[in-house]
């Protein structure tokens, strides 16, 4: 776990003595693998922007609490990832907020990200700029994302259809708010033959982690805009559905066939 600059040490996913923070020697990477596979863990990409990284960590931690309280998923503490160095294969879902400090990716990182997506992983890119993009305008996060995904195998995307499994993975949802609301959410065109139809890329703009983030006292760290308890609840529900989607794939979509299959049984 040597991937965090000292200034960002508090975004370490789990406590470690400083002397263990050395180059990724085999024991260290094994320890990382062990910790990452013990429980299901949500992961986020470290951007180098301390404030954003801390928001991501707190957001995924808050979402984890909601999951543990309401569902049978009981995730471990969130993991901050250096996409240039850390093994990505352990994580079903990686949250990646866009910041203006986002550095371009190395070829190696691009290859690792492509492998991750091909093997069934999902990345949620959050441009966090829904509040900044006017009608027809393009926000700064979106511009950053456009630069970032050069060289990544991004599939053809569509806006989440009304019957998408993400609208029914746990809660029934019709909107996907975060700190902002109204931003559009894009997914890969579902194809059940590949990775159970799970989109390898999800793109939103609503600054989701900020809506999920809770501080040490359990209180929300940011107010939601325009702001209502309902909006924050729906933001959490979206988070729950998102994680369910990443873990159970198309499960809820084919449950509509279960009655039919059960009906056929024994005939």
């Amino acid at each position, binding site marked *: 776990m040597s991937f965090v600059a000292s200034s960002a040490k508090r975004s370490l996913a789990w406590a470690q003595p400083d002397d263990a923070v050395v180059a990724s020697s085999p024991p260290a990477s094994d320890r990382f693998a062990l910790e990452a596979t013990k429980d299901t863990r949500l992961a986020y990409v470290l951007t180098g922007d301390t404030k954003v990284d801390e928001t991501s960590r707190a957001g995924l931690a808050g979402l984890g609490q909601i999951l543990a309280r309401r*569902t*049978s998923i009981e995730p471990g503490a969130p993991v901050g990832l250096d996409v240039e160095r850390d093994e990505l294969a352990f994580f079903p879902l990686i949250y990646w907020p866009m910041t203006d400090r986002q550095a371009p990716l190395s070829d190696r990182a691009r290859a690792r990200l492509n492998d991750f997506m091909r093997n069934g992983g999902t990345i949620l890119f959050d441009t966090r700029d829904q509040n900044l993009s006017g009608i027809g305008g393009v926000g700064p996060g979106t511009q950053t994302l456009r630069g970032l995904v050069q060289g990544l195998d991004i599939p053809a995307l569509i806006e989440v259809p009304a019957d998408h499994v993400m609208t029914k993975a*746990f809660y029934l949802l019709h909107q996907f708010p975060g700190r902002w609301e109204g931003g559009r959410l894009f997914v890969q065109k579902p194809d059940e033959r590949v990775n159970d139809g799970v989109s390898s890329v999800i793109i939103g703009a609503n600054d989701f982690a900020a809506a999920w983030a809770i501080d040490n006292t359990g209180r929300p760290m940011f107010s939601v805009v325009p702001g209502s308890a309902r909006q924050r609840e729906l933001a959490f529900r979206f988070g729950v559905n998102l994680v369910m989607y990443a873990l*159970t794939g198309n499960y809820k979509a084919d449950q509509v066939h279960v009655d039919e299959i059960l009906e056929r049984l*024994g005939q």
Partner: protein
Amino acid sequence: MSASSIIWNPLLPVDILIAMAVLGGLVMLAGCFAPRPGLPAPGVVWRIAATAAVLCALANPSIVIEDRTPLTDIGLVVVDRSQSQTIGDRRVQTNAALSQVADWAASQTNFELRVVELPAPADARSPTGPSGLRDGTHLFEALDRALIDIPRDRFAGAMLITDGRVHDLPDNVAALDTDGPVHAVLTGARDAGDRKLTIVENPGFGIVGQTVRLTLRIDEPSAVRARQAQVTIRRDGAADGRTILAPVGVNHSIDLVVDRGGTSVFELSVGPGREELTQANNRAVVTVNGIRDRLRVLLVSGAPHPGERTWRNLLKADPSVDLVHFTILRPPEKQDGTPVRELSLIAFPYRELFEVKLNDFDLIIFDRYRRMGVLPSIYLRNIVNYVESGGALLEATGPEVTPATSLYRTALASVLPGEPTGTVTEAPYIADVNETGRRHPVTAALPGIGLAEDDTPDWGRWFRHVDARPKSGTVVMDGPDGRPLLILDRVGEGRVGQFLSDHIWLWARGFEGGGPHNELLRRLAHWLMKEPELEEDRLTATVRGDTIEIVRHSLAPDPAPVVVTGPTGETTTVTLEELGDGRAVGNMAVDETGIYRLDDGSRTAVAGVGTINPVEFADVTATDALLRPVAAVTGGGVNWLSESGPPDIRRVRPGRGLADGGAQKPSAGWLAFQRKGASAVTGVREMPFLPALVLLFAIGGLLLAAWRREGK
């Protein structure tokens, strides 16, 4: 032998000779009729003679002498050595008739006998030619092939020594043009009775668990026909079978239960009738390919986890599987008051699944399932019954196996082969296939396993292992420190697998290059569902051409040879060669159609060589009905060895009758080959007809005589 003839070989062109003859003729005529006294002129006769002699010399007559060698007449005997010719004393009759013809031929001058046996004796068979296993008697094909090599002007006739059951009679017998008689010398007895069993309709395949309808028919000549006959049906070489009564002379349908996938060999036999030529056609072998209906797999995931989609990807991609998947998304204790209409949750239909429909599932997978009150214990007891009566259960254990929540603390303990010790090891290790596993079809030769037995597979590491003490079953994969990782077991009629780690998903996600998760889980699931291809202890015999390929799967090397018993009861011992992956293989050449039984002392197998209803045995009564028209068209005759004895064989000049009474007589006493008298020219000599000196004196003498006569 020689023949001679005279040819003209003029020294000058014929035109000039003609001109000279005309000129000479005119001079002679002038000599005869010129207006002069004393006509005709004296000596004109001599001059005519002299002129003629000169012309004759110039025309140069020669004698040509041809040396000729007489050619033998060729007689052909086609001997039917098909399986129906082994019935009764037909073989003896055949050999006697053949040697009689051969002896006769040896006593003839200018006669050559060619003998074609069908099928050719094994040692004379060409590798590309028809094998001895070809069904049916193809005498005309052999006849045609032999005739290609016989010049028509030497073909003296053909004799077919057969029981008359020919299966390649030309469509248009009247158009047969052989330039010689085709005689039939028939073995066997006319009007012999024989009972036979025919498969009228064989469905060929059926869905496992259902029945297929097979139609058979027992035929017997009406004179001796019984009303019913006992048919015994045995499957896969079993010593005993069930017996049914079937009516004789009509089609009769029976239902066979297809109780497993893959090939089932059914052997049907009917007892001897009042008259029997052979019992070979009282049996029939039917193979029914069991096709499995879509397999119903119930996957119950205890909670959403990263490995869940590995199962889903595998089972949803498998076209033969209908997946019913339930995940406990929310345990009963986590109620948060969200209105139901905002939730996408349904109640776990456990009564439906584990009581009403339980027995319709082919496999139940508990994927990181933990006991938490969701599933009342009565349903777990149902699962025990389900397994014992033939169901399949797979438990993939995750970290939740605390003594309090383990499925082992339920009724399922009686069917699970491994008892969790409570130790969960979280350390890197490579899931390895152990020595037994390298011979088990579920884990043998997995991609990347490494060839040598002590090779470590090049698969990505796992980080969790749930320790268990194996109580029964076979451990095929090892975790850290050689602790069991995958245990397979048979319980009652059913099967159980226990995977003592949940980390196979790391292979699916490509960690450290991943591993053969799809192949392993697919084989595991299908082994549990009794896929015959994955049986770890079995003997199989596959017929390819005229070879039986024998494969034995066994978990421990077995030196026992395989004893193969052929259709006529003779045995062959085949020693198998170990391949090192649980298979031992061997081959055996076969040259008879019928059922071969294989036995290595503990395993048996059956192979049916040849077609289901061999045409060769469809009707084995000897007959002249097929060959009599052939004899009639070609001028031959029909002889029944059993009625007139071996025929007297003769040679006759062309145009004479070739058989005793022609083809009409029921059994001809004598048969004849034609004399063709063909010969070949071996040399030609040519010599002048009139020696030059003789001519010279003749011409000179004639001129002199003419001159003297004239001078008088």
